[in-house]
C-alpha cells in the first residue's frame, strides 16, 4: 500500500531520453503531440496534392499531369485530408485536452493509446507508397465507388484496402479509449452534465466512430473479396449490386462527416465563452443538439445517393431526415451567437478562428439545406457546388476548429505564448484565401461543371483561375502556421498560467509550464 502511494506521489519524473520517449511513451501529452504533428504533416502533404489539382485546373486544357494522375491526386487528397489530417488532428486535441479537462492523470488505456497512434504512420506510408507501384495510386475517388474500385481498379487497391483497415483499427481503439476515459476517469464529483463541451462532443464523436468504422472495414473487405476471391457483392453479373456499395459506404460516410465536425463544435464552444467573457449560452441544449445530430446522422446516408434511382419513398424519407438536421445545427449556431451577444469581446487568434468557423460553417450549412432538397439536388449532385459545400464545412469548419484549438491551448502545452501578430496574419490570409478558392466553386457548380474532371469547358475558365489563385494563397499561408508553432515551441516569453482573461476549466488550474504528469491527485470539483 505504501509503495503504491510512493509511485503515485512521485510526479516529478520527466520523459524518457531520446527517440525512446516517442516510440514507447504512454503519456497522453506526448501521444497528443505526436498525433498533432502527424496531422500537420498530412495536412501539408494533402495540400500538396490539392496544389497539383488547382495548378492543372488553373486554365482549360491539359498542361501538367495526365487525367489518370489527376484522378490519383483527387483521390489521395481526399483520403489524406480526411483520414490523415482531420481525424488525427482531433484525436490529438482529445489526447491532450480530455485528461486535462476532466482532471484525469492520463488516458484510461495508455498502452493502447500508444499503439493507436503508431499504426497511423505505417498505414499512411503504405497508402502513399502506392504512387510508386505498377498502375499508380488509387484513382477512383476518396469515395471509391465499385466497380471502378474493384474490377477496374489498379493493382494497388489491395494496399489501399489494407491501409484503410489499419486506419480503422487505429480510430476504433482511439475512440474506445476516449469513451472509457470519460466514463471512468472524471475527477470525483464531476457529473456528465458538468463536463466541458469539448469533452461532451468528443464523447459523442467516439460513439459514432465505434458505430461506423467497422462498417467501413466491412465495405473494404467486401471489395477485397470481390477482387481476389471471386465473390460478387458489387457485381450485377454475379447477382450483386453496385448500389449496395454506396449504401454501405455512406452508412459509414455520413456519420464520418459529423465525426469530423462535432469535436470542432466542442472547441468553438470552449473558445467563444472565453473571449466573450460570458458563460456558454444554453449548455444543456448544446448537449442535446449534439446528441440529436449524432443520432440523425445515422439515418440520412442516402442523401449522397439521390441520383442512383431509389424508390420515391426512400427519396422522401432521406430528404426529410436530412432537412431535420438543420434544426439542432441551427440551435448550436444560435447558441454561439447568443453567447457573443451582450458579451465583452476581444479578438485574439483563437477567437478569430472561432468566429471564422461560425460564419463559414453556417454558409456550408445553408448549401447543405439546399443539397438536402432531392429534386434540386439532381442539379447539384457531383458538381462543384458539392465541392464548395463540403469544403466550406471541412476547411473553415473542421480545419479551423483544430487550428482554433491549437492557438487556444498552445500556451498551456508548450508553456510559451505564440506570436499574436503572425497568428492574426495566418488567420486573415487563410480566411481570404479559402473564400477566393471555394466561393466561386458554388458558381461553376451551378453553371454545370462536374467535379473530379481534369479539364473543363471554356465558360468555367475565369472562376477556376480565381479558385486556383485563392488556393495558392491559402496553401502558402499555412507555412506561417508551421513557423509559428516551431517558434513558440522553441523560444518566446513564458505564458501566464491563464493566458486568456476569463478562461475557465480545469486545464487552466495547472501550472505553466505544464508538468509531465498532471492531476496525479484528482482536483476538487465545486458543485
Amino acid at each position, binding site marked *: 500500500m505504501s509503495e503504491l502511494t510512493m509511485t503515485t506521489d512521485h510526479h516529478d519524473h520527466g520523459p524518457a531520453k531520446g527517440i525512446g520517449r516517442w516510440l514507447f511513451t504512454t503519456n497522453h501529452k506526448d501521444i497528443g503531440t505526436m498525433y498533432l504533428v502527424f496531422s500537420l504533416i498530412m495536412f501539408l502533404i494533402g495540400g500538396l496534392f490539392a496544389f497539383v489539382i488547382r495548378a492543372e485546373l488553373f486554365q*482549360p486544357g*491539359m*498542361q501538367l499531369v495526365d*487525367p*489518370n494522375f489527376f*484522378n490519383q491526386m483527387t483521390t489521395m487528397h481526399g483520403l489524406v485530408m480526411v483520414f490523415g489530417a482531420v481525424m488525427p488532428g482531433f484525436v490529438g486535441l482529445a489526447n491532450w485536452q480530455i485528461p486535462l479537462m476532466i482532471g484525469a492523470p492520463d488516458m484510461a488505456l495508455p498502452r493502447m493509446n500508444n499503439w493507436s497512434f503508431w499504426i497511423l504512420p505505417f498505414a499512411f506510408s503504405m497508402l502513399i507508397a502506392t504512387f510508386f507501384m*505498377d498502375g499508380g495510386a488509387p*484513382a*477512383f*475517388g476518396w469515395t471509391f*465507388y465499385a466497380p*471502378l474500385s474493384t*474490377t*477496374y481498379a*489498379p*493493382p494497388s487497391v489491395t494496399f489501399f484496402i489494407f491501409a484503410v483497415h489499419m486506419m480503422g483499427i487505429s480510430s476504433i481503439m482511439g475512440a474506445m479509449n476516449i469513451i472509457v476515459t470519460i466514463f471512468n476517469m472524471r475527477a470525483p464529483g464531476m457529473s456528465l452534465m458538468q463536463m466541458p463541451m469539448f469533452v461532451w462532443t468528443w464523447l459523442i464523436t467516439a460513439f459514432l466512430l465505434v458505430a461506423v468504422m467497422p462498417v467501413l472495414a466491412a465495405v473494404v473487405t467486401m471489395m477485397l473479396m470481390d477482387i481476389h476471391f471471386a465473390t460478387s457483392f458489387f457485381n450485377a453479373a454475379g447477382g450483386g*449490386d*453496385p448500389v449496395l456499395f454506396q449504401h454501405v459506404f455512406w452508412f459509414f460516410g455520413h456519420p464520418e462527416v459529423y465525426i469530423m465536425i462535432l469535436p470542432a463544435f466542442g472547441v468553438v464552444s470552449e473558445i467563444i465563452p472565453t473571449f466573450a467573457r*460570458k458563460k456558454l449560452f*444554453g449548455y*444543456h441544449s448544446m448537449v442535446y443538439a449534439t446528441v440529436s445530430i449524432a443520432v440523425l446522422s445515422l439515418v440520412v446516408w442516402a442523401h449522397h445517393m439521390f*441520383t442512383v*434511382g431509389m424508390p*420515391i419513398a426512400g*427519396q*422522401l424519407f432521406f*430528404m426529410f431526415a436530412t*432537412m*431535420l438536421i*438543420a*434544426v439542432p445545427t*441551427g*440551435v448550436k449556431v*444560435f447558441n454561439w*451567437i*447568443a453567447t457573443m*451577444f*451582450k458579451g*465583452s*469581446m*476581444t479578438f485574439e487568434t483563437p477567437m478569430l478562428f472561432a468566429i471564422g468557423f461560425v460564419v463559414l460553417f*453556417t454558409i456550408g450549412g*445553408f448549401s447543405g*439545406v*439546399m443539397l438536402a*432538397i432531392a*429534386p*434540386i439536388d*439532381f*442539379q447539384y*449532385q*457531383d458538381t462543384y457546388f458539392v465541392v464548395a459545400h463540403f469544403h466550406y464545412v471541412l476547411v473553415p469548419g473542421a480545419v479551423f476548429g483544430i487550428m482554433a484549438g491549437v492557438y487556444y491551448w498552445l500556451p498551456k502545452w508548450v508553456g510559451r505564448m505564440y506570436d499574436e501578430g503572425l497568428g492574426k496574419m495566418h488567420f486573415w490570409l487563410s480566411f481570404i484565401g479559402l473564400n477566393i478558392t471555394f466561393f466561386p466553386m458554388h458558381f461553376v457548380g451551378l*453553371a454545370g461543371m*462536374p467535379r*473530379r*474532371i481534369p*479539364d473543363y*469547358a*471554356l465558360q468555367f*475558365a475565369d472562376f477556376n483561375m480565381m479558385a486556383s489563385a485563392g488556393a495558392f494563397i491559402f496553401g502558402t499561408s499555412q507555412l506561417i502556421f508551421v513557423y509559428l508553432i516551431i517558434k513558440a515551441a522553441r523560444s518566446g516569453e513564458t505564458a501566464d498560467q491563464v493566458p486568456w482573461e476569463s478562461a475557465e476549466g480545469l486545464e487552466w488550474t495547472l501550472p505553466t509550464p505544464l508538468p509531465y504528469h498532471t492531476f496525479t491527485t484528482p482536483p476538487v470539483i465545486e458543485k
Partner: protein
Amino acid sequence: MRQIMHLFGMALLVSSGSALAAWELNMPRGVTETSHTVYDLHMLILWICVAIGVVVFGVMFWSIYAHRKSKGAQAAQFHESTTVEVIWTIIPFIILIGMAIPSTTTLIDMYDSSESDIDIKVTGYQWKWHYDYINDGVDFFSVLKTPKEEIYNEQEKNPNYLLDVDNELVVPIDKKIRFLFTANDVLHAWWVPEIAIKKDTIPGFINESWTRIKEPGTYRGQCAELCGKDHGFMPIVVKAVTQPEYDKWLADQKAAGAAKAAEADKDWTLDELVTAGAAVYQKNCAACHMPDGSGMPPAFPALNNNPMMQGDDVTAHMEVVINGVPGSAMAAYGKQMTAVDLAAVITYKRNTWENKTGGMVSPADVQAFMDK
C-alpha cells in the same frame, strides 16, 4: 418604334450571348416544365437561406461591433432562456416544412415517367454514350469530338470545347421522352442541366427519367459520376428539333443503317480495311491504348510489338477484341461494333506501327467467329 424593338432585340441577343460568358453565376432555368420548377425551387430555397443568413449574421456582426471590450462593453450574466431556445427550435422547423411541401410535389412529378411517346435507352461506356431508340431500331454511339490538339493546347479551343460530340442525341420537342439508363462497365451519370435530368447509369440495372422539351435547341451536358481516366471527356449533346425535322432525321438514320449493313457484303481490300480501321481505332481504342499503340501498362497493355498482333494466328486477337477480357477494363466490342468495324480495327492493328503482318481479317471472318 422599330428601332427601339431592334435595340431591344440586340440587348436580348447580347444578354443571351453573355449567358455563355465565363462569369455565369447560376443554374440555367432550362427548357422544360420540370427544369423551370426545379429552378424556381432552387431560387426559393436560396433566398430563404439568404434571408436567414442576413438575420443571423446581422445579429452576430452587430454583437461583434457593439459588445466589444475595447468599447467598454460589460459582459451580461444570462446563459439560458427556455423560451428563446424553444422559439428558435420551432421557427426553423416551420421553415423546413414550408420547404418540404413544394419539394415533395416536384419530386413526385419527376418520378412519373408513365405514358411516354418515345423511349430511348442510354448506356454509359468508358468513355462514351450509346443511344438506342428502342421503338425505331436506331442506335449509335456518341463520342467526344474535341480534337486532342485542342486539349493539349496545340490549337485554339473552339467555343464548345469538350462539349461537342460526333453524333448528337436528336429528339422532338413537345413529346414525352422516357430515358432508360444503364451502363456497360462502371457507374456513369447522364446529366443535362437544361432539362434538369441527372441519373446514375448502373451496370446491370435500369433507371428511368423523362422530359418534355419546349424549345428547339442544342443542350449540352457531361458525365457526372467519376468513371475512370476520361471521365471529363464524355460529353452529352441533346438536339431538340420539331417533329417534321425529327421524322426526317429518323428516316436518314434508318437509311444510313441499311447502307452500313450492306457494307458487310462488300469485298474489302487490305488498304480499305486499314484506312477504315485507323478511324475506328482513334475513336474507340486510342484513349487507353494510346494513338501510337504504346498503351498504359499494366492496366492497358501496349499493342505495338504485341506478339498477339504479330503472329499468323488471329483467333486470340479476335477473342480479346470481340469478347473482351473479363475482370478488366477491356470491353467486349463484339456487342458494340459491326463486323465491318471489328474487322477493320483488327486488321489495322495488325498492319500499323511495328506490327507488319500483312494479313487481313475480313468482316466475314469476324462474322464466322461471332457465329461460332
